[in-house]
């Protein structure tokens, strides 16, 4: 089952809409609530990152019987030093983002903590691609 959502950079009013839609679908599919929470926390953090840092982005969601894969592809300034961006507390967020309760440099580490697979690639002045997966029925 595949879904696609378009995200506009700077659109804080609708930030989280895609994550909310994905959560509704997973609930309808009776996925374990703990797995849903891990997945949507990752997705929401990543969606807010696109709104906060990129010009636009697309979220690709693929739900299969063994895992949920989400790929977020954005067009934007990119990340020059991914290792630095992964450090807890490092952030380049604007004051507007901080007013929304984000921008404390916790997003990417929290995504990594909640995901079973985590892969991030970025090209400066082009954009960032983040792919995460959460396993279903993992022993």
């Amino acid at each position, binding site marked *: 089952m595949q879904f696609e959502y378009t995200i506009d950079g700077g659109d*804080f*009013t609708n*930030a*989280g809409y895609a*994550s*909310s839609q994905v*959560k509704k679908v997973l609930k309808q599919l009776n996925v374990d*609530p703990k797995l849903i*929470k891990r997945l*949507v*926390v990752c997705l*929401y*953090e990543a969606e*807010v990152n696109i709104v906060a840092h990129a010009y636009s982005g697309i979220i690709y969601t693929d739900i299969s019987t063994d895992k949920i894969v989400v790929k977020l592809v954005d067009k934007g300034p990119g990340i020059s030093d991914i290792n630095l961006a992964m450090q807890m507390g490092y952030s380049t967020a604007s004051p507007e983002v901080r*007013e*929304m*309760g*984000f*921008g*404390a440099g*916790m*997003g990417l580490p*929290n995504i990594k*903590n909640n995901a079973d697979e985590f892969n991030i690639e970025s090209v400066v002045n082009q954009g960032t691609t983040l792919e995460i997966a959460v396993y279903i029925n993992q022993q």
Partner: protein
Amino acid sequence: MKVKEIAKILSANILCGEDNHNLEFECAFASDLMSDVLTTQADGMLLLTGLANVQTIRTAEMSDVQGVVIVRNKTVPQEMIDLACESGIVLFECRSSMYKASGLLYQNGLKPLF
């Protein structure tokens, strides 16, 4: 702790979800930083915050938080109330500071998250 009890202790208005009589909160967490809220792992958690915008409700939705108290007498925008109603989240507003509201709930037996 039930919805009506929280409202009484905090002298809070319930902006939506008043009819959620059976909803029970086991613990509470107070923060204006939504990234912190997104790291929490608890069932039956009440969130206290002074951050009155839609992202507070989105954060609550993603974190399975079913109750949010807006402290410090902040003006709660209508779009926030609408989203809380749509998401099945009980939304309170109260005049107390975060410190006072947390203290009152703690004093009345609502546990801290950690």
